């Protein structure tokens, strides 16, 4: 691995003078044709061989290197008449407006010039933006009379895109150029053109260089032609444009030489201006875009750079890479959270480069002898001279021999590098788009597995936001030792259990892990010894000695807890009773762990769930990330074993309630609907009292929404009272936080409730009514989208329609939100990415400007904090006291 040989320290930007362009040019381009009849490039044409070669079998006429190595050479076109560069049209206009039309001086007095020069110097010294002050100069430097030569000034206007009009006279590009030439270097600086001469007499820009007299022609490597299957050649858009320019240029020259009438010359000149304009920017305002024969607008220089698919964002800020793989993901609860299952077919394709040393020589030889098809094999060897050799079955023996020979007779020119297959224990980068936060790219250890999908532990789904409905993920293989070391200490999954967003766990148990832990640890869970051993064995936990006694589930779970863990908290299933019975809780929601023994309480989402796992949080912070990983691996496996012992299933039977309950709900909903009718009646009779600051209509809507909301909640409560948490699996899932909510269940059993569009009841559709089934201006519950039925009972057509309206709004909302928040995040990242913490604890940007004197006012890293605090003082005191008691 070669280190950095040279570092680019700076990039200077500047304009090119006509001399520069000519000096750079290897040939003048004159002929508008590209190839002759035999298919050979024409000399002095756009495909002139001196402009560089693409074909690897040819040699470049200019630099002598082969195609692929030659980066190409510029040519040039001498324009018959000067042409304005579109990108600078605005600047040219502003400069003309601010300079004298006869002497070319800036329209400022000497003292003003002096002041501005000082200001410029200061700003440049501090690397601050000049934009504002230049804008100010453009507005100040507008006088009717030149302060230097006393000449009367006439207003110069711009006629988009590139025409300059002085009074009524349209200036030609030549005239514009002449005027710009008059501007002295010192005045140009304040006008925003850095024309100061450096010590060696070099200038980075001159105002007149914004008007082109010579046009550089980019090398063919920039605009390669493609040969279609039919053998036809298809030229690049830029080439097409250059052909246009050459053609018109030629005609203009001929006409001028022949002494054609002024009118014709001017027309051709304008046409040349159009072609040069669209050559630079085909989306310039006021210019009809140049089109391809098929009608597609051409992609010219500016379009190549601009936007999401442009050079900057697509090829420079983000680059395509080798040594990566992508496939569908699927779950595997048996691998550790910091592992990833890699299909064998991928493992034999992507490789890790390994340098031969005396310690790995035999191993590497083995890989080479396995060849490129057998799994722990190798695909390539790189010889010390840099040649890369593919390992085929026919040559693998010779390669292995050479390798050994080179090693034994090591001469100092470097060693062989073997590109071996991926094997268990290699560290790789795993990623799922959209990569919204740093947990979207984490380092995993490889487990080579059969079949064709990536396998990942379910606990890492939340940070990646992954599910298995066809999601695909990417894997990247580190190619240097440095990167592997960095990844191992910073990017491994266990280092990211705590989210830097809020200082709590983002990786943790989900779905069945949680219902499983609940089933295992609830009070009624008692197992005989055989069952216990089965469960423990399945979770790879040590098997204790036989005692013949029965075990409670809590005892089993205690096996995975650290032996000195002490914790007290309330579980997710806590019903928030008015008076907490603590250890005597009926729901067993009061969790007490003493010395690693779970005494009371059940394990649920609050124990080790993603986003809210308290035990997990405690273990990461007190016992370190590796213990946390082990805990998560063991406890989730235990939970899965637990759920398998108990058996777990759900169906609509779980949402079944007795007839009596249905009747009660019916009565209740009818009552609510009557109440709505009463409210409407009161409103019609003008008896409704308006809330302060609200109109009568708004008040009515709010009251109705309130009544109907309460009605649904109440009907849900009725339904809920018929559910039994010990029997009903759907309820177990909702209450433990595994999946779904009580609201989902009540919508299935009791009543779906009010549908809303734009935050209120549905009030759109036909004139003054939602559907023709209702009276005009009807304000009742049903007429405005209240769904009285439950999902299980089924919605009637009207309800179904309203439900679809609400559903559609939700979908549209999501689509818009993703776009908006994506853009916001891009802006945030772009604005903040250069900030970093310096040695003295300050936060500075890349210019060294201090943004914060101490990060976050206390220098605490949120990822290492306890939910944003340095420490939980109460917890600390508790710990201290427990310790001192002993």
């Amino acid at each position, binding site marked *: 691995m070669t280190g950095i040989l040279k570092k680019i320290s700076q990039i200077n*930007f*500047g304009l090119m003078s006509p001399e520069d362009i000519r000096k750079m040019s290897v040939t003048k381009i004159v002929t508008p044709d590209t190839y002759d009849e035999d298919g050979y490039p024409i000399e002095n044409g756009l495909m002139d061989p001196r402009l560089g070669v693409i074909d690897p079998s040819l040699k470049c006429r200019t630099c002598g290197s082969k195609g692929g190595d030659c980066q190409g050479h510029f040519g040039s076109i001498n324009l018959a008449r000067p042409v304005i560069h579109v990108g600078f049209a605005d600047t040219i206009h502003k400069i003309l407006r601010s300079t004298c039309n006869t002497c070319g001086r800036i329209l400022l007095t000497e003292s003003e010039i002096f002041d501005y020069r000082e200001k410029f110097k200061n700003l440049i010294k501090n690397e601050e933006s*000049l934009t504002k002050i230049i804008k100010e100069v453009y507005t100040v430097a507008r006088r009717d009379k030149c302060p230097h030569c006393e000449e009367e000034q006439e207003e110069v206007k711009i006629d988009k895109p590139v025409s300059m009009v002085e009074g009524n006279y349209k200036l030609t590009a030549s005239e514009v150029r002449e005027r710009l030439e008059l501007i002295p270097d010192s005045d140009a600086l304040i006008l925003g053109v850095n024309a100061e001469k450096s010590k060696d007499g070099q200038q980075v820009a001159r105002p007149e260089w914004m008007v082109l007299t010579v046009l550089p022609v980019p090398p063919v490597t920039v605009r390669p032609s493609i040969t279609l299957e039919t053998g036809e050649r298809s030229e690049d858009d830029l080439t097409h444009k250059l052909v246009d320019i050459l053609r018109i240029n030629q005609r203009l020259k001929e006409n001028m030489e022949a002494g054609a009438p002024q009118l014709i010359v001017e027309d051709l000149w304008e046409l040349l201006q159009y072609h040069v304009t669209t050559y630079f920017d085909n989306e310039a305002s006021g210019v009809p875009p140049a089109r391809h024969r098929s009608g597609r607008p051409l992609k010219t220089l500016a379009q190549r750079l601009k936007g999401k698919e442009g050079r900057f964002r697509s090829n420079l800020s983000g680059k395509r890479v080798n040594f990566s793989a992508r496939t569908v993901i699927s779950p595997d609860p048996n691998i550790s959270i910091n592992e990833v299952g890699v299909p064998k077919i991928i493992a034999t394709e992507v490789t890790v480069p390994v340098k031969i040393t005396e310690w790995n020589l035999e191993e590497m030889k083995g890989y080479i002898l396995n060849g490129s098809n057998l799994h722990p094999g190798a695909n390539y060897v790189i010889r010390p001279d840099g040649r890369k050799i593919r390992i085929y079955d026919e040559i693998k023996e010779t390669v292995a021999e050479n390798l050994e020979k080179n090693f034994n007779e090591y001469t100092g020119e470097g060693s062989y590098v073997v590109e071996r297959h991926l094997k268990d224990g290699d560290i790789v980068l795993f990623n799922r788009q959209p990569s919204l*936060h740093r947990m979207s790219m984490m380092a995993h250890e490889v487990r080579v597995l059969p079949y064709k999908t990536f396998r990942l532990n379910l606990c890492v789904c939340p940070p990646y936001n992954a599910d298995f409905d066809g999601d695909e993920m990417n894997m990247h293989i580190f190619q240097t030792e440095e990167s592997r070391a960095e990844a191992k200490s910073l990017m491994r999954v266990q280092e990211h259990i705590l989210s830097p967003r809020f200082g709590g766990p983002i990786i943790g148990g989900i779905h069945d892990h949680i219902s499983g832990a609940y089933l295992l640890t609830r009070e009624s869970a008692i197992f005989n010894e055989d069952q216990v051993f089965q469960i423990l064995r399945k979770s790879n936990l040590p098997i204790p000695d036989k005692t013949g006694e029965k075990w409670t589930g809590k005892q089993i779970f205690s096996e995975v807890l650290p032996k000195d863990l002490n914790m007290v908290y309330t579980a997710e299933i806590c019903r928030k009773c008015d008076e907490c019975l603590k250890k005597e809780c009926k729901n067993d929601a009061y969790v007490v762990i003493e010395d690693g023994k779970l005494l009371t309480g059940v394990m649920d989402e609050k124990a080790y769930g993603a986003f809210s796992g308290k035990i997990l949080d405690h273990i990461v912070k007190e016992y370190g990330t590796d213990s946390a990983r082990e805990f998560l691996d063991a406890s989730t496996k235990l939970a899965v074993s637990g759920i398998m012992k108990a058996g777990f299933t759900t169906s609509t039977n779980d949402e079944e309630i007795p007839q009596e309950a249905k009747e009660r709900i019916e009565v209740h909903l009818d009552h609510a609907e009557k109440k709505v009718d009463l409210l409407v009646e009161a409103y019609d009779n003008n008896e409704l009292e308006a809330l*302060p600051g609200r109109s009568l209509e708004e008040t009515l809507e709010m009251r109705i929404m309130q009544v109907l909301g309460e009605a649904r909640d109440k009907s849900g409560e009725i339904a809920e009272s018929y559910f039994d948490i010990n029997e009903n699996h759907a309820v177990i899932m909702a209450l433990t936080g595994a999946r779904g909510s009580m609201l989902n269940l009540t919508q299935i059993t009791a009543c779906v409730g009010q549908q809303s569009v734009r935050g209120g009841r549905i009030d759109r559709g036909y004139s003054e009514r939602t559907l023709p089934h209702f009276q005009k201006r009807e304000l009742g519950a049903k007429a405005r989208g209240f769904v009285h039925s439950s999902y299980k009972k089924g919605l009637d057509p009207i309800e179904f329609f309203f439900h679809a309206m609400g559903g559609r709004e939700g979908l549209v909302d999501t689509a818009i939100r993703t776009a908006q928040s994506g853009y916001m995040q891009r802006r945030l990242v772009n604005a903040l990415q250069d900030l970093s913490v310096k040695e003295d604890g300050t936060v500075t940007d890349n210019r060294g400007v201090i*943004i914060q004197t101490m990060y976050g006012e206390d220098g605490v890293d949120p990822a290492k904090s306890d939910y944003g605090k340095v420490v939980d003082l*109460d917890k600390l005191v508790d710990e201290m006291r427990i310790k001192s008691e002993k």
Partner: protein
Amino acid sequence: MQETIEKVTKVVKKKRAKFTESLIYEIAETVEKRDMDDKELDELVKRVKKAYERARVENGEAVGTVAAQSVGEPGTQMTMRTFHYAGVAELNVTLGLPRLIEIVDARKKISTPTMAIYFEEEFRVDEEFVRTIANQIGKSTMNDIVQDFHTNYAKMNVVVELDMPKIEDKRLNFEDIINRVEKAFKKVQIDNNVLSFEPSKPSIRELRLLADKVRDLQISGVKNIGKVVIRKEEDEWVIHTEGSNLGAVLKMEGVDKVRTTTNDIHEVEKVLGIEAARNSIIHEAQRTMDEQGLTVDVRHIMLVADMMSADGSVKSIGRHGISGEKASVLARASFEETGKHLLRASIRGEIDHLTGIIENIIIGQPIPLGTGSVGVLMKQKK
């Protein structure tokens, strides 16, 4: 309490720990609450010091990117619902993603400016006083205080009978109303509580316009403030307003200058200065997040706020603010308006020193952050 704080400060000094003021305060609070003795305090400070050292940010940490991600990532989980009833059911307030975008954009005109006006101690429970102030602040138009309003086409005038009890109820001053009316309309006759207006030209059109004008005449209220709502919050009266004018409200008597706030960040900047604006950004962003049930560490929001207010005025995040004023040409060009930045750089002869992240990615060099922010310096052999 003061004593405890001093005691803790002393212990902290003895242990040679550097704690922030807030941390010392928290420790002191715990000491009082848990009734700790000196030995325990010693032990506590020792432990906190250890924890504090463990929790420190590492040098070179890319805190900016982490902050941006932490603020941006929950955006996908936020609602798009523009209006929500936040606490005060009577007022609409923009919340969710649109509000967050508004804050980050540093919009000059926010969609729902609102104020919460608190009162000084002696007036807090004085309902009468608060109502009077509320009516001075809130916008009232002629329409709110008329008893009878009719347009007389025969006599070509508009006759308005004022509702004296209503004026009383709104705690308005009759004299003031009359003054305002006389100032706004030239042709007006006042006969006790009956006012009659005449149009400048006797035409039906003019008369109708006049009627509307009379009805909409603002007779009291602070500029830019519309509706007001008075609410009792924890034993004190608070005024919530639609619209905002912090400068004018703070000048009013009895208004608590410390707690009275607005959600308009630019107004805070104008009236109270940049530090207040920074705090306002933090407060508003945090509130928006909390309301959605999303937890984001303050430190991330602080960094965003500090970046926005670093050079003394509130700048937006995006091409018109921070990103558009970066020193590096490549960084600006790769964000937005690529062509503009490249062309401008060329005539100004700008130099890119390649110190930022994007620039180094573009040219394929290691980035100067984290691991890349350190180098190795070899000691030369003599």
